[in-house]
């Protein structure tokens, strides 16, 4: 390549060389060694780009947080690794037992509680309620025994004394 002013490296070639230095041909390299104009043009563009990169780096802050790897679970003690597994297994077993107990124990009531419910209450007859109430309020057993004794073994003479028979009445 000639080095006179007419045969300078074209602008588009300068751009290509700046973008990718592998684009520089041996002829262009030889020309640059001899031509100050082309060398300055190339250096000027490269210098501006270098300056742009430098200023951009200066105008960017430094990160305050640095990347730290997450905790390595594979290096934990086996017991610690399985701890959550056992917890989950225990919870599942408890839930299964509860469901089983509810199914076997009656379904409509919790185990240990007396059977209650609107169904049973709805069948109570008001007359039977009265009978039950009277039965509950009956005389105590001691009184019942006493009256039973009177009926079973009373003294005939004493009765006659209290209520004299008609045939023995002197008036009649």
């Amino acid at each position, binding site marked *: 390549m000639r080095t006179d002013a007419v045969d300078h490296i074209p602008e588009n070639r300068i751009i290509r060389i700046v*973008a990718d230095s592998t684009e520089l041909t041996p002829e262009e390299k030889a020309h640059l060694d001899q031509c100050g104009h082309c060398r300055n043009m190339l250096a000027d563009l490269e210098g501006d780009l270098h300056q742009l990169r430098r200023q*951009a780096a200066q105008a960017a802050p430094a*990160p305050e947080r640095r990347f730290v790897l997450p905790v390595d679970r594979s290096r934990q003690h086996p017991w610690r690794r399985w701890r959550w597994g056992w917890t989950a297994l225990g919870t599942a077993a408890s839930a299964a037992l509860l469901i089983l107990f509810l199914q076997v124990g009656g379904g409509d009531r919790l185990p240990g509680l007396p059977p209650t419910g609107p169904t049973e209450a709805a069948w109570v007859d008001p007359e039977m309620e009265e009978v039950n109430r009277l039965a509950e309020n009956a005389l105590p057993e001691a009184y019942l025994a006493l009256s039973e004794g009177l009926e079973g073994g009373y003294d005939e003479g004493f009765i006659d004394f209290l209520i004299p028979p008609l045939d023995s009445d002197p008036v009649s």
Partner: protein
Amino acid sequence: MVATSSSHNSDRDSDIGRLAAEARDGSRFAFQQLATQLEPRVFRMIYYRTRSREDAEDICQEVFLTAFRSIRKLKQPERFESWLFRIAVNRVKDYHRRQKFRSLFSVLHDTDSEDNAEPPAERSPGTIDAIVHKEFWQKVQTMLGQLSKMEREVFSLRFLDDLGIKEIAEILSKSESTVKTHLYRALGKFKNDAAFRAFIKEARP
């Protein structure tokens, strides 16, 4: 100069490839080494696209966590870096989708907060830096706004994130020739943006 840089990149890549292979085989230490080495770059890459430190930190955490959980599926450990940046690009896309969705419901709120934004109380060095940085990102935003979506993406990956053509092609799932085409166009627009280049030059030490 170019040869030295290539050699340095090659050494870095082989180191990353070796660590990625060890991490894939179950070495947590190797993955932590990878994270330590690549986190600043990945964080910056995300920050350039979100302009929020908190969001960039969150996304960066997600990216490395995803990589850690999926590294056993990585077939080519030498391409770990491209793979990681691909995860990052996808996470950033998700972030912008979420932001877009949220913006539909908070237009009024955002307008209010912009109007009520208080000027800096005092001109401390930190405040001046913040103003300079804000102006820089506004200029970058304007420049990138002239590019198409794909041009913007390849330009950012190449010149802000310092990735090669091959890596960009892998990250974006495009052919190298497609990436180059977009990159040439983007670079042509950058070259002709005299105002932005003058702004960049002003800040040179």
